[in-house]
């Protein structure tokens, strides 16, 4: 019988991520510390991690971060299969929401932070449409971050809430650290700024250092 705001990070683990994976893992560690020191946020948010390359897997089941002492870190693998990530995210959200509701929780609309540095080499549109289907009630707000060789238009078309693309002003490692910091801020701000009119539940910074925000009309 809690009120829960689920957050998911959906992260590219393709080979091209090799140089930056440590920065991302450090970012997750800082996220854990920030949530643990804010009881309002810790009480209300849950956090899960999905990694994807040729396939997708749940690296951290939707968890109460203040009770997590160890998680599978991100590790580089093969190609870039967006579709597998979107499909697993939808299935995971369905299962998590059902479980939370079964536990008597009230669930707020989930938020998903999607991060990729590469071109998808699998078909993904159908899985994306299923993930964002207006008829599917727990569809997540998606915040998309792109960097490396990712296509700007692709990233802009994935974010349903906000989209960002790395602009080269920071090294990839630093940019990803900023991504993790934006994620932390979003969780803390959203966890503490639950509003009554439902429109601005998710609080994501408009500016993330090292990234340029893509406007929806740039599609």
């Amino acid at each position: 019988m809690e009120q829960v705001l689920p957050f998911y990070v959906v992260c590219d683990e393709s080979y091209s991520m090799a140089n930056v994976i440590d920065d991302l893992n450090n970012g997750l560690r800082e996220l854990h510390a920030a949530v643990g020191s804010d009881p309002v946020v810790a009480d209300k948010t849950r956090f899960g991690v999905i990694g994807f390359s040729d396939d997708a897997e749940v690296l951290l089941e939707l968890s109460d971060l203040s009770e997590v002492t160890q998680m599978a870190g991100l590790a580089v693998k093969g190609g870039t299969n967006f579709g597998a990530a979107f499909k697993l995210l939808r299935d995971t959200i369905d299962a998590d929401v059902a479980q939370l509701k079964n536990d008597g929780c009230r669930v707020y609309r989930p938020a998903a932070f999607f991060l990729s540095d590469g071109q998808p080499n699998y078909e993904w549109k159908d899985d994306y449409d299923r993930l964002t289907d207006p008829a599917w009630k727990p569809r997540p707000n998606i915040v998309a971050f792109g960097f490396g060789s990712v296509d700007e238009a692709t990233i802009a078309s994935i974010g349903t809430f906000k989209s960002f693309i790395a602009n080269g002003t920071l090294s990839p490692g630093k940019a990803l650290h900023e991504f993790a910091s934006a994620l932390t801020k979003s969780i803390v701000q959203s966890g503490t700024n639950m509003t009554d009119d439902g429109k601005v539940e998710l609080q994501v910074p408009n500016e993330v250092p090292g990234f340029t925000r893509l406007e929806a009309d740039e599609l």
Partner: protein
Amino acid sequence: MTEGKLDLVPPPAPPAWGDRAEPWVPDTVGRRAKAAEAAWKLDPDPDFPDTVLDRGRLGDIEVLACAARGSKHRFEGTARQDAAIARAAAGSWALAAVADGVGSVPDSQQASTAAVQWLLIELTRRLETGEAEPHKMVRAAFGEVNRRLVNLGGPKTTLTAAGVEALPGPDGRYRSWVAAVGDSPVYFLRDGRLVAVFDLEREDEFGTATDAMPDRDLRNRLRLRSAPIRPGDALALVSDGIGDLLGARSEEPKAYFAERWGAAPNPVDFMRHVQIRSRGFDDDRSAAVLWAAPGPTGQDAPALRDAARPSAAHDVEIRAGRLRGLEVRAVSSRGLEAAREGRRRRARTVLFERAGRLVAITAAPTGVDATADHVGPWVAAVREAVEGFPPDHPSSEWMPNLWSLAVRAFDATPGARLDEVATAVLCAEPSPGGAVDYELALAGPVSAAIFGAGIHQELGTIRAPEHRWGTGPGEVPCRVHVDRLTPDQGLLLTVGVDPARFARLPERPGPLEAYGVLEGERAEEDQLALVLWGER
């Protein structure tokens, strides 16, 4: 780090804060709420104190109304956005309202606080002019409040209200109505069961959207229903801070309130129930409950205040928080005499931060003159003086200078009489190791005591004031102490309550316990207490 694993170190748990001991600590349903155990920051605007409560009786109707900051606003140091009120109208109707300022709009506490007051004033005006048809009257009053809220220029609020006639009709039932715009629900309490009066379904089960005022389409937003009640029944109006708990699939919260609110609890318990803890439920809390409770009452039963004499003052007000290394509690409560006569509380405590220091003002009437309010203008004068002359001003004698500025501003008020006020003005800041440096100005019969190890001593008996002011003819004498509390000492400012009651407590009191001390020693006059100590 294990291969491929991230080891994560949880930060150390913060020390427990506030009310920690039975019977003061609020109960928990469901999982433990860590946010509810976190230290509070002070209210950012002293005009919106952490917790307020109205109480009283009109005819057969007993009413309690309480609004309290939720753990989120307490942890962040942001303002309470809920409001709750209870009043009597035209000597024949008990009225109550709760409002929940919409969090996504700034300053929504302005809207909620104004809405509950305006609504009760509008209803009273119509009742006094003999408007007989309740629904027509309620619609018109909501309409008027809706119009006035537009003038606030942005803040929005839900608004839920109820009226119950003070005496039963020929059928033994009490005429009543309930009305609501937005998601602050109303429950009907009968035979140990809570039943929602209005449909509670949200349009988007994953969202938090609600109707709110002002709204151009008020006619279609306002839900209104007659709800005649029988002796023993009650109507409970709550904000969604409690409503979401009651709407949860678990039966536990419903059972909790149904069991405790079958008949009116004492006001400290009511306040504690309102602050029930449950993980993730960190929103502001408010509840106003009207019980149809015919039967004899004690001679000191408090009377519901008359809505025709509008005032923002609630019958009880609690402020508390931690500010840099300082811990403070401040409580004021309506005295027995004012309660019997349905008058408002005039004793006041105000806490705020200025230039990194804690500034506190306590003031209570000393005289028998119930018609003039000297306390309000005095507190306003001191606040204004602090604004213009903040405590970081490089003046060697800040407090004496502040005092004379405040006196000058107060004297400009027509009819102002400082000899009708018992007051203390305090400025404190932490000193290393848990000590507290303070400057304290005292005038009139206010007790200032140093306490520790179960005993207390009046400040004036252990130390001569550094300054004495106002010793000339016609002036009000003021004594100024500039001193330091050691880490094992606390400072107690009280009116209408024995300081020994605080000094003897085994632990330093949480906010509810501080109010409990006042309730344990009801006095004819208004009561107030301020307790300050350094964080060890």
